């Protein structure tokens, strides 16, 4: 690992000032489970590593019907999946967090880090997309909130500009009865990246679908959602939904899977997830 200077600011203000000053020479260190591997492999070689874990106030999970669920930047994936609040109100999110890496990794890795890393295969992204989560960003110009859907801009690229930091993710409260599932296909059951990840929620009669690991970014399948609107779920519409989902993504062949296999699995998982949220679990 190349030498760098380690900085541990204790306020957001100081963090922003460091990030603004050093720009691309600086990297934020949160859980470190991606960054440290990349530094070891010399994929990234920052001159300044900015540890944000001493910043107060960004290490909490809060929830209210009015404000929804609020997950601070340094909250680990195990803290999310072990949270009674998350288990009760957003079980799909608790489940998705548990599919990332190993128990040891989830003790360090954070949900906000998973999002900021912007991997197409980020397991927390599809559930957060269907729940229409928002990303809270602070920079030298002040605070702003954007939809997660607009946060990803390419493979491992997010919308953050120099000097900006994500302080939390907000998941809106869902008024109506709803169910959701996150289905992940990997090469093995645990400790693997998703070959395909599919999140589906059903809120009242509205079905929302998001897919991971099948495009440069995690994506919402808006066209497929529109196709399903007001329809009775039967074999014919399920087949159409699977085919429609394929038109909204651009899977590639890589070490984990061929493009053809991904295309097949997308259809299978979209169908299975829709049936599961609709309460027909014999998929």
């Amino acid at each position, binding site marked *: *690992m*190349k*030498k*760098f*200077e*380690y900085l541990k600011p204790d306020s957001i203000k100081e963090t922003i000032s460091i990030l603004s000053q050093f720009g691309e020479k600086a990297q934020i*260190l949160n859980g*470190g*489970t991606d960054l*440290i*591997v990349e*530094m*070891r492999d010399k994929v990234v070689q920052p001159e300044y*590593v900015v*540890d944000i*874990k001493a910043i107060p106030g960004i290490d909490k999970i809060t929830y209210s019907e009015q404000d929804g669920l609020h997950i601070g930047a340094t909250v680990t994936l*195990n803290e999310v999946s072990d949270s009674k609040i998350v288990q009760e109100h957003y079980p799909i999110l608790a489940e998705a967090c548990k599919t990332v*890496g*190993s*128990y*040891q*990794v989830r*003790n*360090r890795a954070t949900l906000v880090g998973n999002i900021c890393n912007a991997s197409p295969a980020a397991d927390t992204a599809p559930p957060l997309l269907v729940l229409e989560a928002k990303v809270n960003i602070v920079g030298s110009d002040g605070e702003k909130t954007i939809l997660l859907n607009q946060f990803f801009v390419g493979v491992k690229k997010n919308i953050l500009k120099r000097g900006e930091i994500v302080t939390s993710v907000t998941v809106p409260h869902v008024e109506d009865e709803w169910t959701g599932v996150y289905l992940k296909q990997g090469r093995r*059951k*645990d*400790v693997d990246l998703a070959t395909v990840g599919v999140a589906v929620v059903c809120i009242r009669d509205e079905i929302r679908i998001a897919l991971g690991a099948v495009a440069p970014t995690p994506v919402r399948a808006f066209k497929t959602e529109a196709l399903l609107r007001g329809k009775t779920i039967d074999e014919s519409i399920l087949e159409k939904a699977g085919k429609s989902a394929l038109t909204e993504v651009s899977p590639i062949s890589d070490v984990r899977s061929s493009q053809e296999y991904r295309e097949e699995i997308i259809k299978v998982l979209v169908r299975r997830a829709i049936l599961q949220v609709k309460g027909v679990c014999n998929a």
Partner: protein
Amino acid sequence: MKHKICFTINREVKEVEVEPNKTLLKMLREDLDLIGAKEGCGAGECGACTVLVDNEPVNSCLMLAVEVDEKEILTIEGLSDGINLDSIQESFLKHNAIQCGYCTPGMVMSAKALLSRNPHPTEEVVKEALAGNLCRCTGYQRIINAVLDVAKKGGKK
């Protein structure tokens, strides 16, 4: 620039100066002569470097040494009291849960953390807790049996 950090390791307070680009694993093995934790993959896949930081299992290859400032670390070397082995170590011996031994320190530390947070896990829960520890001799069943046996006997220590 070296950073001065202070932490507790195996119940002993230590103050050291460390380069920021050194991982916790490297510091344990190279500076503190604690060579129980191993480097298998160096990327958080194999769990051979598992140690406990504030009672939680982490991959020490994925943590910088500077990050353990003011923290409490427990490694495989700190499990026995010098005379008696920990009940998990005893159980691994009894069940022949060790072949080449490379994964063993990590396995034992993951099991230790599991039994502290859940003294009576089911087999499924044991498998989930050890999912991040690879054994290439594939002795998994004996390892799982060893952990379950400790749980059956009270899961203490």
